[in-house]
């Protein structure tokens, strides 16, 4: 049985079209005109138990709408979804028992309560047996170094502490599936590492299925062997991360700020000149063929460089490249 089975999942919203100005506002009340907005368009995928899958897309691509349908908050317009064999909407309570969710920066804990009290309440809500609760508390204490944090109310915690607390609270009832929405946003590198390690460990030890929605490609790289990419409501890629990296993660862009204009600048080996501006030139190079330092020295040997910067591949450009490069969905499916 799949952990998550989505079949032609679609969500269409009826939105009132608002014209600007006073007249438009009146019209919206008296005779509203509706538009149909397709947030999710026939998305299908299967996730095996124990997988860690990245669910990525730019803002507005339909990620959170999909998650809402998987968690039972929203009813699909078309298609259907099964989570652990259940319809998450019809069997809301039974499904809720087996899932956990982290919604970005919105905490599920009570603002003014000491963390351990919040944890207590969550454990009671999910009916975690007291002995098991104590065991898990100790395990999480070790794994996340909660220690003194237990006595602190959420409102007094730093971002990193909040996220550790959030994860502990989400996993205290040992859910079989966990939906993580931007779990490392705003955290420094060390804190991110800690969170990622914890997620890895939980997945390893408990076989918890993880569906990770994030903009942070570092998260994806460290945690998700498989990714699903969604854009404008449509699924455009569903397959191994390695394929993506090979195809699109290869290229880097490096930009140099130079003193003189350089029409006579020779392009270094394995490089492609992308953009030339009065005091700036941008190259794209293949990481498998050459390195940033080689390109940089190749340029600096020729001309005086004031400053240079290296651009990380971002999600938007990967999506763009998928459309352009024509990596079709079929290719990526495992």
């Amino acid at each position: 049985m799949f952990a998550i089975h989505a079949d032609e999942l679609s969500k269409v919203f009826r939105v009132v079209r608002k014209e600007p100005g006073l007249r438009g506002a009146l019209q919206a009340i008296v005779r509203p005109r509706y538009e149909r907005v397709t947030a999710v368009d026939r998305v299908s995928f299967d996730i095996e138990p124990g997988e860690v899958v990245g669910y990525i897309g730019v803002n507005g691509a339909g990620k959170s709408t999909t998650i809402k349908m998987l968690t039972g908050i929203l009813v699909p317009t078309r298609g259907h979804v099964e989570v652990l064999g259940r319809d998450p909407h019809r069997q809301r309570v039974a499904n809720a028992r087996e899932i956990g969710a982290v919604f970005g920066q919105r905490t599920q804990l009570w603002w003014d309560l000491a963390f351990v009290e919040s944890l207590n309440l969550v454990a009671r809500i999910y009916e975690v047996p007291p002995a098991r609760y104590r065991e898990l508390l100790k395990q999480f204490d070790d794994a996340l170094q909660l220690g003194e944090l237990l006595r602190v109310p959420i409102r007094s915690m730093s971002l990193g502490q909040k996220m550790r607390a959030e994860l502990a609270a989400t996993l205290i009832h040992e859910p079989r599936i966990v939906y993580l929405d931007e779990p490392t946003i705003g955290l420094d590198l060390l804190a991110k590492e800690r969170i990622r390690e914890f997620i890895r460990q939980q997945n390893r030890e408990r076989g918890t299925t993880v569906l990770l929605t994030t903009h942070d490609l570092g998260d994806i790289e460290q945690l998700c062997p498989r990714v699903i990419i969604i854009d404008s409501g449509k699924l455009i890629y569903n397959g191994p991360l390695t394929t993506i990296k090979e195809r699109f993660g290869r290229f880097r862009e490096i930009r140099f700020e130079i003193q003189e204009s350089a029409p006579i600048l020779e392009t270094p080996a394995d490089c492609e000149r992308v953009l030339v501006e009065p005091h700036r030139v941008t190259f794209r190079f293949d990481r498998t063929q050459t390195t940033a330092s080689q390109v940089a020295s190749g340029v600096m040997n020729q001309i005086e460089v004031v400053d240079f910067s290296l651009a990380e591949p971002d999600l938007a450009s990967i999506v763009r490249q998928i459309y352009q490069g024509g990596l079709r969905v079929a290719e990526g499916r495992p």
Partner: protein
Amino acid sequence: MRRYLSLYGVFFVQRLKILLEYRVNFLIGATSTSFLQAAGLLALWVVMRQIPTLNGWTFDEVLLVYGLVTISESITHMFADNLWTIGHSYIRTGEFDRFMVRPIDPLFHLLADRFCHDGIGNLLVGSVLVVKAMSGIGIPWTAGNLIYLSIAVLSGGAIFIALNLLTATTAFWLVDSTPVTFMVYNAYEFAKYPLSIYGRGIRIVLTWLIPFGFASFYPASYLLGRPVGLLAWMGPVVAAVFLAVAYRAWQHGLAHYTSTGS
């Protein structure tokens, strides 16, 4: 059912822990509503000391009506306060989605999440009024009367909750339901005084449409030996009906929420 009861206990204790952290604030919250009540009651006393009766009701008898509805109001104030802010504090912020993902009834979660101690002020004031009135009139404190009082007050509280729930449900469509709830809730002002002072239209509304009459006037009439017939006993029935209707509306609203995502 028992699980929900014990779960409510846990919610309650945790809420108390938060409240007691702000101890002085706790006290002030609990007593502040009493001051507003006191002003109104002082005004009532000033007026009534000039006249023998209000439409045949003595001052103590009027206090009985006033006190009963105040106790009923305190019940919704204490246990269902979140219904006021469901729109802008829970639905608009997305907090409500969290309730949908937990394995307990979202309405229960909403109500249990906030026990409002401000309501204690009204509970005390109302109780004092009822005790004073009954002693002043000479209504005996028999077991029967006590049971009747308890049922009346609980039914009254249930009616308050049902009406607030019904109006709060509009939040699923309007997002901010507070104005709607405010409007219906404030109709209870009528029920502070004997319904006999109003015209027939208002009396019918307050008996069958926005039935605050069962929170004060009809139980008081019964205890005073005034003829009200069946209406003396219909409080629980009316409360049950309105709760059922309100809950059905809530479920309808929930279905709308899961279909349109607010």
